[in-house]
């Protein structure tokens, strides 16, 4: 028998599903960092494998003693990836503004990542200074994606101050501990009218999936990929993890129950 194969409707989720930040639309829900890689070539290979359309970058002094050393822009090319300049290393609003003005001149766009960290071993954001810096940047015309703690009250203040996206930490930067407070992240997602991204603390693919299942718009990760034994393979895993979490969120998970509910019918037993 060679009956005609049944035709199933397969909705093209990739084409339909996208998110928008500051007027820019993206189909990948994974943003990756470009720090801590062995070299820029490996970084570029991981970026390609991840399917990410946005990469975070830092701004630093050019090494004038060796101007021929490799440059990020020659590997992770700005014509292939949207650069998201960060303010890592800035501890005040004024430092953040100065850094991002230079980044705007170097790259020519206004979409930036604000991170004003505390000078502590956990590097959690200094939220008072973060909020102040955000207001300065918004007044300068920047579209600011804000790294923050997972405090829903502060997240609301950031949104009211004009944040383009809210990016609560899952756990300390580079810790790989995964999402520590699902309740808070879910509360932040529920209240936010701008995109919510989990940023920092993702350790492996399942952490990214959990964040997406909670309804986050995207996930930002750096060390989980750069610090994996095989960064390119982990980048690929993260790509699928984010898609899986998003699909599960959209599918709507089943209700939890305490006791078993047999999957095979009990009637008609022989």
């Amino acid at each position, binding site marked *: 028998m060679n009956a005609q194969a049944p035709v199933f409707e397969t909705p093209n989720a990739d084409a339909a599903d996208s998110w928008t930040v500051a007027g820019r639309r993206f189909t990948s829900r994974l943003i990756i960092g*470009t720090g801590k890689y062995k070299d820029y070539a490996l970084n570029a290979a991981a970026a390609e494998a991840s399917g990410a359309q946005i990469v975070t*970058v830092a701004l630093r002094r050019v090494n004038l003693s060796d101007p021929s050393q490799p440059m990020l822009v020659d590997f992770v090319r700005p014509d292939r990836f949207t650069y998201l300049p960060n303010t890592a290393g800035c501890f005040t609003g004024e430092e953040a503004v100065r850094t991002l003005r*230079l980044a705007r001149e170097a790259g020519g766009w206004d979409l930036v990542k604000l991170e004003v960290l505390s000078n502590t071993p956990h590097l959690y954001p200094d939220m008072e200074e973060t909020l102040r810096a955000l207001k300065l940047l918004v007044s300068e015309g920047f579209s600011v994606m804000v790294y923050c703690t997972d405090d829903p009250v502060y997240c609301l203040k950031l949104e009211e101050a004009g944040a383009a996206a809210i990016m609560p930490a899952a756990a300390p930067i580079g810790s790989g501990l995964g999402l520590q407070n699902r309740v808070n992240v879910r509360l932040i997602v529920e209240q936010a009218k701008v995109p919510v991204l989990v940023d920092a603390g993702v350790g492996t693919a399942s952490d990214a999936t959990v964040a997406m299942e909670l309804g986050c718009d995207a996930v930002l990760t750096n060390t989980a990929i750069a610090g994996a034994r095989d960064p390119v393979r982990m980048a690929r895993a993260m790509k699928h993890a984010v898609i899986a979490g998003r699909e599960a969120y959209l599918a709507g998970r089943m209700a939890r129950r305490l006791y078993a509910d047999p999957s095979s019918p009990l009637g008609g037993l022989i």
Partner: protein
Amino acid sequence: MIPSPRSSSLQLTLNGEPRAVAAADLAALVAELGLEPRKVAIERNLEIVPRSLYSQTVLADGDRIEIVHFIGGG
């Protein structure tokens, strides 16, 4: 020992370090340092200089110049 200054050399603070340069303007400085203008951003005395104005930006003794670029970061 301070390198013997050429007739037109300027003493700058370049990325935090003292440096004597022959360049008279920013465009010449970028060339002297072997940098590609489209890959850097420059601040002169805490003011950003747009790339289009490098050749019109005349350097002066004591100028504090910061030249930055994008590197890997999270």
